[in-house]
């Protein structure tokens, strides 16, 4: 999968960096980014669709469509568009292997 980001930053780039992991890969975002912004500045998609071949990258960005849920290595899933990125977050685009 491409490690090039989907989004393009246009402003507000002088914020402190935040380190996080995406599928085990070390990534960097900026403080104040949502999880969606953080992940999509390092990848083209947030997750794989459970029902089709395509990747998903969010849709409404305001908590209404539920397209942007992501997995965390620690267990709880999060809505990427409305969760701020935090230092040390470990995110996954696919469910853990033991998920039924």
């Amino acid at each position, binding site marked *: 999968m491409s490690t090039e980001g989907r989004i393009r930053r*246009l*402003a507000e780039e002088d*914020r402190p960096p935040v380190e996080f992991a995406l599928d085990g890969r070390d990534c960097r975002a900026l403080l104040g980014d949502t999880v969606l912004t953080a992940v999509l500045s390092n990848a083209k998609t947030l997750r794989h669709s459970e029902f089709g071949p395509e990747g998903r990258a969010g849709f*409404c960005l305001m908590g209404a469509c539920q*397209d942007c*849920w992501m997995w965390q290595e620690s267990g709880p899933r999060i809505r990427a568009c409305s969760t701020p990125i935090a230092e040390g977050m470990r995110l996954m685009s696919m469910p853990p292997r033991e998920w039924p």
Partner: protein
Amino acid sequence: MSERVVIVGAGPAGIRAAEVLTNAGLRPTVVDEGMRSGGQIYRRAPEGFKRAADKLYGSEAKKAQALHACFDRMLAEDRLAYFPLSSVLAIADDGLQVLTADGLQQIAFDRLIIATGATERLAPVPGWESAGVYGLGAMQIALKAQGVALGRRIVLAGSGPLLTLVATQLEAAGAEIAAVLDTSSLAKQLHGLPQMLARPRLVARGMAMRAQLGRRYRAGVRLDRIETSSEGVEAISWTHRGTTHRTECDAVGLGWHLRAETQLAGLAGATFTYDHSFAQWLPKADAMGRAGERLYLAGDGLRIRGADGAEVAGRLAAVACLEDMGLSAPDARADARRMRRLDRFAEGIARAFPWPAEVVRQLPDDAVVCRCESITAGALRDAVDAGGSEANRAKSLSRVGMGRCQGRYCQLAGAEIVAAQANLDVATVGRLRDQAPVRPAPIGAMRSPDHSTRSGRNN
């Protein structure tokens, strides 16, 4: 003890409703999903972002600043209880079940003002399930709240006032806009013009924005297909005056004006009618927003009038609430007059930028209608043939409307497809019943030990 009034939503309508109530000496509770107050059109960036208001809100900067200041003042003076980052999941027994950052809480109310706003109104375009397809509003939210463009080469398509507005905002910020494709023809747009002239300055501003886009703006377009790879959008093909075009892009923003967010209103007991000019189900309410016993609605969740209309509707709902409690209320006659002008404009917009019902009815069988579960138009048509045309029946058989968005983004398109298959008017198909919880919630929150009422927090 005075009655407990709870407002759901801290956008233009919710904030102005709170202002009227606090001025009357009440202490309302405001529950809002956002990290900060302001709603979507006047959405605020997180703390630490530095762009000035005129960069974020353009010609509407003064309105946005006034609204934000109004809320911040009420909060600083402790004149309301505020639950940010909190989603109402259900309404029962005169209480809201609210998922807050600290778990599930019950918030009791005597009167309820619902100001939940709107989402984009979406029509499926083949390929729209792919990564890189967003709502038009999402494009705007990404720019305002995060300072980012959701792609490197963007096509905006659909119809409505947001289309050219978002295009010019993105371009001014440095994004590349490859094309702006309006499915409404110039003839239809002229049809709405007389009523839209109720607000001549807005019309002039819209024309200027369009002129700025030049040949990249096309009216009367048919959107044929979004071409995709496993990593997302690659191009959009479209037809204009009989010629097919293909525009390469890595992101598409779609939207056909707005769709009222009405699920909480439905759970609170509002009833609905299909409004043919707005082409959607809208709650029944009087001119002040009274929609049931001790229930008031305001803003785009009541009727699509935009931010200015939402501020007026918020004040009117609060005045109605005060009057019904037997308290003295400010004179609402000027706002009622203002609202009549805004309503004329809103009707004009609805005419000028119509919902593309015929295109939706003719979607190819392999086009995805439900993005949540990737269910196609063909599968929905089969469900109608097997089980009939009632909306909720078609939903249980096909699962279109049963995914995680609970039909917010497929209900209107689904209803058109069902109606076409059964040869009915779309209003006859019916509205999907509102089902709690209206947001997904972790099971863990349900066994939270603290179900007691809290007084909110001030941050």
